[in-house]
């Protein structure tokens, strides 16, 4: 397995990262600060990448419908903020609300995806796209009461960007932060991430988890062995959706804002490309691959911002981001199918 984990895209990405690091050094950037930030970025985006694993492992492909879980998480966040819950209780309340909502969303999403076997990716993309305008109705019409969440004057409904500063901005980031000579290690944040990874790791060792992996590897075998394929897929899809919900909660507490409306539309793509950079081939994926991929991708993004500003084309960051993201996904789509023929 290890010998084919490092392939062309990984090599290119690592070379690219090295070039960026050299440029950063030449441009006299503070690498320590960048390193500190990279750890935050890892967890901030890492949970969303973890969310892809259950569906990849059950053989339902890359979850392009990640926005389904993300909006579920956003609803959870909004409820917590609506009740003006602050600090850890606020954050955990938002997780709890997200969990409940995402189970329902994931269940519905799973029922739909079970009807489109073999075409989950394109169907997921459009289910994800369509839920955004649907939720826009919710953001506009839902009876939230906290004034700080609403459009100040003239508008109706929630504002597109809700500041988390008074509630639970950075509660996790700053929890157990260790500072040693400029290095800032967000121990609490990393521990939380580690716990989620551990949970997934253990989950795939339970009976259901093992059935998920077997189904992803050989669905016909599983069926012949008496596994209820639809149920197993449903469980994996719900888990993926729940993790997406948790992922956006972690993301928002780091970022400091709840971003509503069209913002989650294309959030699935960076998460997918992160997992692919980590070495996944669009089938069974290891937790390590998701973590590594997120770290590499986020570090590259982090480095490109100041460098692009330095050479006076600020748009370059965003363009490079999308370019890397989509070329990796395209590569994976092509590569995966070629491999299937070889088998």
């Amino acid at each position: 397995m290890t010998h084919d984990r490092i392939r062309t895209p990984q090599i290119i990405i690592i070379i690219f990262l090295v070039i960026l690091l050299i440029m950063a050094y030449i441009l006299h950037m503070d690498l320590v600060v960048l390193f500190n930030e990279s750890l935050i970025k890892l967890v901030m985006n890492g949970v969303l990448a973890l969310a892809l694993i259950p569906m990849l492992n059950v053989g339902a492909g890359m979850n392009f419908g990640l926005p389904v879980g993300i909006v579920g998480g956003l609803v959870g966040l909004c409820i917590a903020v609506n009740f003006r819950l602050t600090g850890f209780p606020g954050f955990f309340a938002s997780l709890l609300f997200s969990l409940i909502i995402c189970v329902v969303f994931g269940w519905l999403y799973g029922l739909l995806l079970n009807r489109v076997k073999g075409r989950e990716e394109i169907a997921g993309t459009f289910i994800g796209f369509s839920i955004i305008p649907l939720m826009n109705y919710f953001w506009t019409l839902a009876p939230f009461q906290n004034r700080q969440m609403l459009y100040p004057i003239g508008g109706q409904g929630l504002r597109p960007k809700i500041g988390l500063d008074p509630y639970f901005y950075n509660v996790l980031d700053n929890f157990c932060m260790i500072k040693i000579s400029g290095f800032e290690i967000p121990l609490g944040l990393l521990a939380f991430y580690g716990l989620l990874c551990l949970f997934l790791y253990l989950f795939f060792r339970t009976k259901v988890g093992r059935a998920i992996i077997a189904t992803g590897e050989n669905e016909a075998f599983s069926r012949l062995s008496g596994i209820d394929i639809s149920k197993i897929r449903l469980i994996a899809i719900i888990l993926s959706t729940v993790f997406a919900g948790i992922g956006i909660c972690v993301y928002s507490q780091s970022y400091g804002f709840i971003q509503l409306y069209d913002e989650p539309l294309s959030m699935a793509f960076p998460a997918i490309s992160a997992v692919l950079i980590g070495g996944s081939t669009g089938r069974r994926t290891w937790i390590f691959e998701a973590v590594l991929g997120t770290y590499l991708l986020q570090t590259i993004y982090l480095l490109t911002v100041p460098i692009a500003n330095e050479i006076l084309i600020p748009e370059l960051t965003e363009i490079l981001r999308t370019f890397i993201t989509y070329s990796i996904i395209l590569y994976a789509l092509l590569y995966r199918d070629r491999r299937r023929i070889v088998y």
Partner: protein
Amino acid sequence: MDSLFFLFTGAAMTNILDIKNLNKSYNGIPALKNVSLSVRAGEIHGIVGANGSGKTTLMNILFGNPVIRETGGYQGEIYYEGVSLKTKNSTEIIGLGIGMVHQEFALIPDMTIGENIKLGREETNRFTDRLFGKKYSFVDRKKNDLNAESALKKLGVNVDIGVKIINLSTNTRQFVEIAREIARADLKLLLLDEPTAVLSRDDASNLLEDLTELSQGGLGILFVSHRLEEIQQICDRATVLREGEVISQYGRGEVSTTKLARDMIGHTVSKAMAKKRAIEPRPLVSFQQYSVEMPGEEIRGMDLDIFEGEILGLAGLSGHGKSALGYGIMGMYPATGEVVYENMKIDRMDAKANILKGMYVLPDDRQALGILPDHSLAENIIFTGDQIKGLFSMNFGLPFLGFLDKRKVYDHVHQLVDDFEIRCTSVKQKIRELSGGNQQKVCIARALTVNPRLLFVAEPTRGIDISAKEKILKMLIDINRSRHTTIVIASSELDELKRVCDRIAVMVEGRIFKVLQPDSSDVEFALALAGEEGTDYDA
């Protein structure tokens, strides 16, 4: 005598197809050895052979199937009207005036009969022909359909030309397929691969008449069939293939079903591995009007009793339903009919429920259905027992957790690995790294872990080297004797069935044709496989 015949008629009838010393192997395993044969204009040349005789390979070569080139091409020469076909692809071969009727129909399901018959050769509007060339010229639908209709009429088939293929019966599809070929003005040689396999007797005899007429019109026909009577009836010459070699060639008048049957199966020297014994005819499971819709291997209204404690062999040519029996029970394909197991009617063909009742199926396609290639040997062995029966789970009081009890797993797996002599570096080795024989042993070990009363095994020795074959067969006998597991073996290796089984049921066209004793003669088997009653053979 073939050459003599040629001498007499050589001047009048020229060979349009000449195959000389054809050799083909897949990954070093020979599929065709020194095959030579020829087809003359106006002649029907029959080819007979059992599964694995090289018929399909020969047809694939003639059809220009890309599979041949991808696996390293072939040696020897094929001349069609003096032109070598070696470097030609299927489009070019068709262009030369060779028509092909494939076993799996090359008909486009969503297009009408007319469109299919004229596909690629549509009648086009003259004006736009000159304007844009044939390919981009407007199709004259009316003329097209008329032309197609006349081709169908030639075959004596009356159907509405505007019906889509998807709505046709298999019978009619076969005629459409043939009509497509004979609608061509340039057709000189027709290759037919088992054209009557899907036809009813009446339709088959109609088709045979049509073919005779066509050949009298000067068309050369290469006719592959396993129905020996047909070969006898219409072929001017016949060639028998066995294990890739030409066993015999007969001229007109010499062809007889008995000779063909004997040559096709060959003389097998088989010593029974298991002693003959008397089995009490008490059915463990009985099937009535049982049908399974497995594409290409349909079972159509089968009646069969399987006795408790026996080893029953299921023989049959491929496509006649022998591998669908187990899949139907496990709900892999829609199944209908009555199944009574231990005096209880089974109403739901559901894998989990039926595994719990004591049935288990080992599939014929091991790579696709039998293993989890990236999982370890141990995980493969315990999978079903663990998932369905919960044999290896630790629950800590919470039933949904079910972490693996590693020690229990390894004790069990080591025991089986030792018992079955499964060769591996460790029980954690990935199963795709094992040889076919060891993979099959793992599959059997998995079956034993669920401890079934009734075990269906399909093609247990396919893709396994000879020494391992013997072991696998022995394992099956041991399991049957020591655990009293009733075993049903579906196999195309008649020889093996004869050595292992207590009874052998021969399947033809999705039904049990005959139940024979393992010591019945080869000719009896050959005729039964070909669906011939064979009451008056002269062995």
